[in-house]
């Protein structure tokens, strides 16, 4: 925007320098030539100043709005810690259940899952519900590592490593690793999950 303005202003300075030549006709030729030379020099200096200034402003603008400059992951430590804590907490409860208390898990899922994540979860849980009660399955999820990839305004992307311990009544528990890419949205002051992708 500034860059677009700058050549025009420089050009105006140039015409101003030559356009007034008519006024100087009474002066001796040498003085007139010196005056013209001086004005040309001034016009060049002015043009150089405007060009340099304009370029610097464009560079400053580009630095301030570089891709990633708006991303507050880690740069805003407090917000980063908060989104990681909220989402870790949400994932832990949503993927933890016992056959006797499926309702708690579902209620919690209703609170923290939105959009596609909620739909996917409902579909999964619908299939799972019978199995869980019939085979007395329980699942305990623990967050092992978590990091924010992006945090901009009320939106965030996270990568979370989970350990999931599954147990069927009468059988030995098995622990498996799971890695999830999470898309999250700040909803009424609480971080909610809008998409979950297994990695």
């Amino acid at each position: 925007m500034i860059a677009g303005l700058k050549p025009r202003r420089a050009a105006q300075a140039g015409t101003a320098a030559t356009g007034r030549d008519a006024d100087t006709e009474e002066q001796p030729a040498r003085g007139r030539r010196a005056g013209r030379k001086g004005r040309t020099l001034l016009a060049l200096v002015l043009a150089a100043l405007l060009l340099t200034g304009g370029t610097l402003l464009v560079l400053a603008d580009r630095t301030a709005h570089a891709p990633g400059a708006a991303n507050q992951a880690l740069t805003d430590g407090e917000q980063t810690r908060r989104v990681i804590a909220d989402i870790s907490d949400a994932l832990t409860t949503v993927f933890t259940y016992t056959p006797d208390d499926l309702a708690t898990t579902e209620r919690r899922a209703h609170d923290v899952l939105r959009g596609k994540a909620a739909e996917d979860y409902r579909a999964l849980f619908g299939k799972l519900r019978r199995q869980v009660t019939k085979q007395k399955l329980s699942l305990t999820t623990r967050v092992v590592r978590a990091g924010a990839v992006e945090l901009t305004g009320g939106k965030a992307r996270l990568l979370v490593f989970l350990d999931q311990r599954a147990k069927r009544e009468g059988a030995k528990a098995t622990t498996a690793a799971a890695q999830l890419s999470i898309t999250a949205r700040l909803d009424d002051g609480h971080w909610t999950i809008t998409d979950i992708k297994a990695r």
Partner: protein
Amino acid sequence: MTDTGAVRRRSAWSAALLAGSLFCGFAGWTYAHTRADDDLAYARDRDSALDAARRHIAVLNTMDGQHVRTSLRAWTKAADGPLADELRRTGDDSAKVLEQEGTSTRATVTDAAVTALDSRAGTAKVIATVRVEVTARTGKSTTDRKRFEAGLDDNGAGWKLSSLSAVPVAAE
């Protein structure tokens, strides 16, 4: 008439030059201020660390079974500090084993996040998920999914991996 005209012209030029100088000075100050902005510098470091981590982690999980030594050289280039030392130490032995097996792997980093960053010390921690396509000498291929935690440092030559370890499932 000419005098007043000349005076007016001169003052107009002075004003224009002054304005130009002020504009240029202001622009310079703005640029210097933006460059020195701590948050922006920190964000740049974070993004370059993440970018380097993604590339280097992919390299360290990729092996050309036909050109083992070339792959191992790439590994050493992606690492420094303790990891580079270890790679150099084990390089010859691993090369022999790998050449014998002839297995090729191709890795893609599917997601990654910076979990810690100290700009001043030039250290960072990154977690990453990797999909590895393993192709045996026989041509049979399988896909493996792995999760890693990597340490990075920047000793002036850009971010490199100082450590890389799989994040295991916690023991019971």
